[in-house]
């Protein structure tokens, strides 16, 4: 299996938000939701001096996605095809699932119940329930899977003015992301409490990484208390909503 991953180089990042806006434009993400966003951190003291850095954030396409765990949708068997080898894999997938070929955590919109369990479960706040739709659906960053299929890079990678976003297959030892993670020490945002194998990595000055972890590493095991509603509850809520609108 491959695993798509992204490294964000804070040496280069200038905190310009271009990535967030390119994502919004490409997928017409309605305000105020976001699939990709940027937070300002500092200026603040660290053990290495003042730091003023940025947290460009998105879904981490985790190795152990807790959002998938809590999804209440009935799993159905799906077939996934590896475009490189032509091999296929069969797997039972819920509405939210991890693609066994490329490691992307994706949402099957047709099957999403709109219950929001995954939104509450994600310790990174990467998901939203799109309430601008008649039937709300969960949504989030897909690493631009559709663009990847057409040989394009993710929209945020393409627009970044300083090429701070490096994208690739981390299982490929010749890839730049592999080198940055395994040789340059790019780190994913984890903590003692929360380590679910995120695939977005950050590289930067020591002080900036220190501030990033202090401010942004998740500590709450958000998924543990998520009670996914029964499908009946979800149905009833949806009907009520439609009735309210009428």
């Amino acid at each position, binding site marked *: 299996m491959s695993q798509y991953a992204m490294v964000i180089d804070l040496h280069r990042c200038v905190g310009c938000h271009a990535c967030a*806006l390119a994502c919004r*434009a490409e997928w017409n993400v309605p*305000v*105020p939701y976001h699939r990709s966003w940027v937070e300002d951190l500092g*200026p603040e003291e660290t053990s290495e001096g003042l*730091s*003023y850095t940025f947290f460009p954030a998105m879904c981490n396409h985790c190795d152990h996605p807790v959002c998938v765990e809590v999804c209440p949708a009935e799993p159905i068997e799906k077939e996934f095809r590896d475009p490189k080898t032509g091999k296929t894999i069969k797997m039972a997938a819920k509405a939210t699932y991890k693609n066994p070929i490329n490691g992307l955590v994706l949402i099957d919109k047709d099957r999403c119940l709109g219950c929001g369990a995954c939104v509450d479960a994600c310790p990174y706040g990467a998901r939203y329930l799109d309430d601008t739709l008649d039937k709300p659906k969960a949504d989030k960053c897909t690493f631009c899977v559709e*663009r990847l299929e*057409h040989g394009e890079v993710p929209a945020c990678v393409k627009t970044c*003015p300083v090429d701070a976003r490096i994208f690739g297959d981390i299982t490929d030892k010749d890839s730049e992301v592999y080198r940055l993670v395994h040789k340059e020490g790019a780190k994913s945002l984890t903590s003692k409490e929360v380590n679910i194998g995120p695939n977005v990595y950050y590289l930067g000055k020591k002080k900036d990484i220190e501030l990033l972890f202090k401010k942004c590493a998740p500590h709450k095991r958000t998924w543990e208390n998520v009670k996914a509603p029964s499908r009946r509850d979800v149905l009833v809520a949806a009907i009520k909503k439609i009735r309210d609108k009428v």
Partner: protein
Amino acid sequence: MKLNRRQFLESAGIATAALAAWKIPKGVLASPAPAASKVATDLPGSLGAKEVPSVCEMCFWRCPIIGKVKNGRIVKIEGNPKSPTNGHRVCARGNSGIQLIYDPDRLKYPMKRVGARGEGKWARISWKEALDEIAYNMEKTRKKYGPSSLALFDHGASAEFYRQIFKGMGTENYTNEPAFFQCMGAVSLAYVMTYGYKIAERVDMSHSKVMLFFGTHLGENAHLAQVREYVTGLQNGAKLIVVDPRFSAPANKADIWLPIRPGTDTALLLAWINYVIQNDLYDKEFVQMHCKGFNELKEGVKGYSMEWAARICDLKLHDIKKAIDMLAASRPHVAIHSGRHSAWYGRGDVQRHRCLAILTALFGAVAVPGGIYFPTSVDLGESDCVECEAPEDVEEPETSLKDNYPFASYFGSPTAEIIRATRTGKPYPIKLWGIAGVNIIHTISNPYETMDALRKLDFVFSIEILPTESATWADIVLPEANYLERYDKVYVNHDLTPYVTVRQPVVKPLFEAKSPFWIAREMAKRLKLDCFHCKSEEEYLDEELEDIDLSLAKLNKEGGLVRLKGHPYRDPNKPIKFSTDSGKIELFSGSFDDEDMDPIPKFEPILAPPKGYARLVYGRVPTHTFSRTMNNLWLHNECPEPMLWLNKEVAEKMGIKYGDRVVIVNQDGYRSANLVKVKVTPGIRPDTVYLPHGFGSRSPLLTKAYKQGVSDQFLITRYILDPFFGGSSHRTDFVKLIKDGKTLDIPELRPVPPEIPRFEIKKV
């Protein structure tokens, strides 16, 4: 900004309502474009869209772009891959151009004022009525008060057309770009006088070994090509020195941060120049061959010691020595950034940038990799069509608004003088204003005076895209096509790799918006000016392109952009003729000497804050341009309001915590219209507060920006005029904070040396 889910849902309702009210009229089709790759509108996202090359104007860096169109609607904006500067990239604002074109608040039709000036109450009228009315008033005013009673405030590419109309009417007040008088005037003048070229900002950062920024905050200022060059420089191992009272985004990437006392930059630069000369750290050969006035310079700066500068600037001697040694060790490959926005203190701004220009010359960092470089000239043809001539029988007014400023004629009439003449009738009356593409109320120092002048005019018209607060004062408003809907003039970039490109319509103008060419031509017709005879935009563009063997069609075949060969660097063995009076780099400025201005820069102290006050400084956020983008749905969402930066130690003494909301009050008693959140941080000097520029719109017609955040501009009421060209200062105001109704003094943690007098507040 992150919202919890409830907040999400609450604001989502508002967003949907706004979207629902916005319908694109039927039949709006994309304009014909060069053959794009296979167009397939059913692919997801922007995949398969039709591509039209053009030029961005979300800010004035003007990156080449590709507009991506599906079903007649722009779905995405990307950089033009042919561009040597940005390639396929655009910044946050560039990405958000879609929300300018589809902003439901846009001006849709010509309108006539029905309420009071400033209220923004209008009634829809026809283009014919609007243009007739403007022409009638221009002629009437000219007849009654003379040609110079007409004044134009302008900015941006479209303004080039309207400028011609005012020039054709014979006024001396036809190009009064607030951009120069409020922004770039001082730096432009300093570099032109020293080098003879406009090489300000042509700084070869990507090839430099050390970069030096004075207040320049690239990254927060998102001019894409520069940001890219600066970060490339860092990536290639360049060192960075940042001089700024605030720990800016580049300060975080810097090797040395010098948190200088505001107003003392020239002291530091003069001491550095002296140190470089005294310690033989300069490039003797270069100076001998190419510079004029070295001995006068040496003599002029000899009194400025490093110890003195450290005390005046409130910096550590060790740090300022380390910085200048670092620069000297890497000469000539040092990128001393000229700066851009330079209207800081009024007095001394030109000389501060002269010092930067001189230091650059001493290091020989001129037209070498990593230094400043020459613009490559491109022989573009001229089209007579869009050039109007001033009538021959018109005489310059007896007393010109430029009289007191020996170098104003480079830029136009000082905006402050136009405002004064309008308010007082002296030295001559100004009775009619045109305002095109610039929100003057949110740009020019002391907006209260600007509004007073607007009240006194006989007639004012505005050509705009959005109903800004300045537009709300107009008697007639004309809706202009925005940059994605129109042609402008040919755009030539003269940088490292020069190129030629054009702005062209990606889609047709919405509603009744019209292109600047069309508007200007209709005005010219009515005013019987002998210009704008060509029938279409394409015609004058082809005329301009002809001399470099191009045409619009040819350019579009090349993807909308053609690269040219640049000549940025000098041949070390050949003499250079600079286009200064002496043909050399003028360390000693003959032109300044002729006008009784200091030919060698001197230190003139800038008044320090009165006791209990801090200096108000401002800057940019990367998601906004001036006050232009605050109503953009996406950019507003990204950054709806600014935070006020306050030093941590000061805040503790004042009892202010991170996120507290305060009112700002300035030395003249003007208060911010609403509360601002405080960002308590060690990353700013105790005697300075910082507020990002452009927020707090007062136009109720801007439904997203109205009253959002606090405006720095409405606190900038005290200004000093630049003696060289009449620019207005913007960093000469002082503020206190009001929390829970109590006015709090800002404690003074860094004592002011006796050489720097304080501003005194007049007791009334």
